């Protein structure tokens, strides 16, 4: 089996987001970066499926040169090879992102049986790149998935489960297919030191795609109106307990 997983590099925002002076980006001078959570789980799922069924996994990202760090991180947990679509760091809208991924898939020597995505990126949250890629390739697409099981015998049907209010909805799709997953489908492993050493030597191809005109161009970022509440301090340590219980009684939960 041959699995492709698409990931995005995003900043670790911590407790408070600050913007650059021109409001075009988050101020990341003092921030670390990571793989967007749903996509980290997609990569872990790819590694687990290959461990179970055999084959090869590829990780792809569209992002600045620094995003090689995220590709190597995913190779360190077991992904076999990487594709880096290098950008100048500017925003790519969902249509441009999907088009670049599509070009990369079409020009890659591998034929993928399964394309894994995160349901939505942590930063832009556009909810559509996987669906656009699937539509262009003429493949089925299931989204928001929290469990994937592959039928061990041909035709290797994928059974996918989605959490909904009151239970789980079940889908079955043939391969090749596109699946976007949610955090919670698995608990991603931490990369080991030998894993990190191996990741450095794994194959990585890169291209610099040209960015088409955006159809959903970002004008500027805005911070939501601050909820800078003035908290009522009920006390310190265990002595605060009676004051807490008075509040709980006022609300009617005690």
């Amino acid at each position: 089996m041959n699995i492709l997983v698409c990931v995005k590099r995003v900043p670790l925002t911590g407790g408070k987001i600050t913007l650059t002076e021109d409001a075009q980006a988050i101020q990341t001078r003092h921030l670390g970066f990571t793989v967007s959570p749903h996509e980290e789980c997609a990569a872990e799922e790819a590694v687990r499926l290959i461990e179970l069924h055999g084959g090869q996994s590829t990780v792809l990202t569209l992002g600045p040169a620094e995003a090689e760090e995220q590709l190597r991180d995913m190779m360190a947990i077991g992904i076999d090879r990487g594709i880096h679509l290098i950008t100048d760091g500017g925003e790519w809208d969902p249509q441009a992102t999907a088009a670049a991924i599509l070009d990369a898939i079409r020009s890659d020597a591998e034929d993928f049986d399964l394309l894994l995505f995160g349901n939505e990126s942590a930063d832009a949250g556009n909810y559509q790149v996987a669906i656009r890629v699937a539509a262009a390739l003429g493949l089925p697409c299931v989204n928001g998935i929290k469990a994937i099981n592959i039928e061990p015998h041909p035709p290797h049907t994928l059974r996918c489960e989605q959490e909904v209010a009151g239970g789980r909805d079940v889908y079955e799709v043939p391969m090749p297919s596109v699946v976007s997953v949610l955090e919670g489908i698995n608990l991603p492993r931490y990369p080991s030191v030998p894993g990190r050493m191996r990741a450095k030597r794994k194959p990585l191809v890169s291209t610099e795609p040209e960015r088409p005109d955006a159809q959903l161009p970002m004008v500027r970022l805005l911070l939501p109106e601050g909820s800078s509440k003035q908290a009522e301090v009920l006390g310190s340590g265990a002595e605060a307990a009676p004051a807490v219980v008075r509040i709980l009684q006022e609300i009617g939960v005690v």
Partner: protein
Amino acid sequence: MGVLVFIEDPDDELSQQAVGFAGALAGDAQAIAFDPSEAYAPAAWAQTLVELAGQRSATAVVAPGTDRGNEVLAHVAAKLDQPMAANCVSATPGDPATVVRMRWGGSLLEEAQVHGSPLLLTAAPHAVAPAPIAEVEIITVTDAASPLDRVVRVLERVPAASGGVSLADAEVVVSGGRGVGSAEGFSVIEELAALLGGAVGCSRAVTSAGWRPHSDQVGQTGTKVSPEIYIACGISGATQHMAGCKGAKRLLAINPDGEASIFASADYAVIGDLHEVVPAISTEIRKARGT
């Protein structure tokens, strides 16, 4: 000319908000829902909406910013090769149209232009007042939906195991963060939640450490909660977490660090170690109840 609003259910609050959002965009918004006998099939539903939007020369198609709303509208956008803006808090028609939409689960907003027609937007949850849905047009999947469109459809619903208070619906949530220190440390959180008839929550740091299952995680990539009171114990207040608990009516934060960013979003603050404060609260509740 007109706006089509794909809704899930006329009684669903987020569907009513989507109709309110569409009404603000243009006066004549028509609510559309699929017949309840239709199994959910996002691409086939989208093809049906594409056909309807064409027949009616719709200027916009709007959906609620729910899992299904975003999914169906993204399929519509892919089929029409048009842009789609997800989770909008406001929209101004024009050429191009301008929207303000949520990023980072609402911790950040973005002003964006949307080129092309029809305008494809989903309404961010709880950004716009709901509008009563007087009339819903009930439709079924069109013959134009291809075999490929029909491949992805819900085959069955496996009911959830019942028992316990659901995190999403709980009136009280007692949540623990990295400050809890271990899986065993959650016993004091569980005790207080049980006394209050509430649910246990946790931060992403806790699930990443393997102390609690992901089903307990509150946050941008976990469950969104809206209790009467959210009691955050040893949680620093990362944007990832706050995106999940901003729907709480009141927030009580217990943290030893008076500078923790959670206090900027809190209504009530207790400065202290949760391992001392939380058992003391449980003891005090028992005392108040005379048990």
